[in-house]
């Protein structure tokens, strides 16, 4: 067994802000531990504002104030070379971007320069990594775009001349054309129709397979996870609450929150929608005590209100943080 491609240990990252003299601390990532294997696609799911993007930014070394890493470590392993993101210097981090590690941000606009043609963005980010003649470089890029159902003409366009879904695909193309060893993607297919989405997922899978890269794929869309990810981590209110092989998590969800997610999956033909979860998502500035899910949990017990359930292994490859699913973890 080789070393994991990524180890996240005890990671805690909060936003510390002050508006009009009111101090706020948003506990967006709290004590998260997980690993991603070489050649593995790891999915992260969870409701809006549970901290998915924050976790990903922290892993991708893309944090900016007011986000602060308070504890824990993020260690990548690029073919035997360990890079500890919060110990490494800026130089070292810059050196791994694009070629080794690429990050597709939610909204994906940040990478495209609005006043330059798309072609120039490719030249800026990818030319020196691909290292071929200009003609050959263009051919590589055009072939890559084709896999994302994009015509070569998009290279001549300015970002605002493209549709939302076309821009999203250009961002994916930029992040994958150099075939990095580790790809981190935050909601990269939200703006795509289902046919194009299928093509994009197939491309991602192909790139991953061809070079054996590792991927973290964040989306709230569980159907995408079911079709792409080997393993799935479920987040709730800043914490990881369940993890396991995707098919097992779907077949037999352990955490009450995951059970709700899986049973509420919409399908075409539903004339009536599945029921939403009762109650609002908790505020991460003032999260519930104990198990953060307890105010909405149908099986909550007294112990859940005052104690934080630890993430424990309950079966090979399966972890869960819940006093009902893992009774042995009760205090």
């Amino acid at each position, binding site marked *: 067994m*080789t070393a*994991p491609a990524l180890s996240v240990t005890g990671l805690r990252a909060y936003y510390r802000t002050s508006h*009009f003299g009111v101090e706020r601390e948003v506990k967006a990532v709290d004590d998260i531990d997980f690993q991603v294997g*070489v050649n593995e*696609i790891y999915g992260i799911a969870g409701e*809006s504002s549970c901290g998915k993007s924050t976790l990903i930014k922290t892993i991708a070394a893309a944090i900016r104030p007011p986000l602060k890493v308070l504890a824990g470590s993020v260690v990548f392993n690029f073919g035997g070379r360990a890079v500890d993101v919060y110990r490494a210097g800026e130089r070292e981090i810059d050196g791994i971007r694009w070629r080794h590690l690429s990050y597709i941000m939610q909204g994906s606009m940040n990478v495209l320069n609005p006043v330059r043609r798309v072609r120039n963005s490719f030249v800026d980010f990818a030319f020196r990594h691909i290292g071929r003649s200009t003609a050959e470089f263009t051919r590589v890029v055009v072939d890559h775009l084709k896999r994302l159902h994009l015509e070569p003409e998009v290279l001549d366009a300015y970002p605002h001349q493209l549709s939302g879904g076309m821009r999203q695909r250009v961002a994916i193309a930029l992040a994958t054309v150099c075939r990095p060893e580790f790809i981190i993607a935050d909601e990269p297919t939200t703006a795509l129709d289902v046919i*194009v989405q299928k093509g994009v997922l197939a491309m991602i899978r192909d790139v991953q397979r061809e070079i054996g890269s590792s991927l973290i794929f964040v989306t*709230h869309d569980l159907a995408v996870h079911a079709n*792409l990810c080997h393993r799935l981590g479920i987040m709730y209110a800043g914490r990881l609450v369940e993890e396991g092989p995707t098919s097992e998590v779907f077949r037999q969800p352990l955490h009450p929150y995951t059970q709700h997610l899986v049973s509420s999956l919409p399908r*075409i033909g539903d004339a009536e929608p599945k029921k939403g979860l009762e109650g609002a998502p908790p505020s991460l500035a003032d999260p519930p005590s104990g198990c953060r899910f307890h105010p909405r949990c149908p099986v909550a017990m007294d112990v859940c209100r005052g104690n934080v359930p630890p993430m424990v292994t309950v079966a090979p490859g399966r972890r869960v943080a819940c006093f009902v699913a893992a009774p042995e973890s009760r205090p």
Partner: protein
Amino acid sequence: MSATLIEVAEVGRTYAMGGLFSRHRVRAVDSVSFAMETARPEIFTIIGESGSGKTTLARMILNMVAPTEGAIRFRGTDLSTIRGAEARLKFMRAVQPIFQNPFEAFNPLKRVDRYLFMTARRVAGLPEGEVEGAADTALRNVGLSLAEIRGRFPHELSGGQLQRVAIARALIPSPALIVADEPVSMIDASLRISVVNLLRRLRDEMGMSIIYITHDLATAYYISDRIIIMRKGQVVESGDARTVLDRPQHPYSIALKAAVLSPDGTNEKTEVTSHA
């Protein structure tokens, strides 16, 4: 007063694109027609390929982009004849947008609550004393509150939070027509249900009409009255939403329905070399 709320008549939009050597024209929207009646509020859904002209059509209906062919009339008035601040404001009060990709729609340097206050003051014309209350009520409709977002900049909110702020903003003036361009793309299934239920309530209780652009066939099936399916600027199929989605006729619509990912996951995942 005309009985037609909005009429889109043979509308087209062509763009010139390209570099120095390869100029070409994109037919973003190609003779699209439909009408919505005032007396029959409905959710009119537009589904289609990425790049098929949905946003361009929406921007034309919002009078932000002029058609190169055809005309759009709102309550009988051709949008191209709307001139002057007064007339524009009146149109904005009646027709409100929710833009695709909230990360682009909001100015990063402007606090998001300002957008809500501005809309309440300028578009809805509310007196100062009612501005905050109106913003809070609209936010509560989408599972947020003014206390939660007050003073925050767009990048300080999650994708789904920002998208819900955009929806809340559009509700403030109680428009007759909302043009919602992928309003739930960044929202999880559970919240999505409450947002689409909200759209339904707006139709049933407030008599609002909604043009709903989406890639999500499941919610489209659940809330739409009528649907059009677009590809390469043209409408390839249209009709009663459930009829079209149950039995699509055009090859593109059939392919679209077939491509919906099943949560049961029929993928060809690779073997993992190392496991955590």
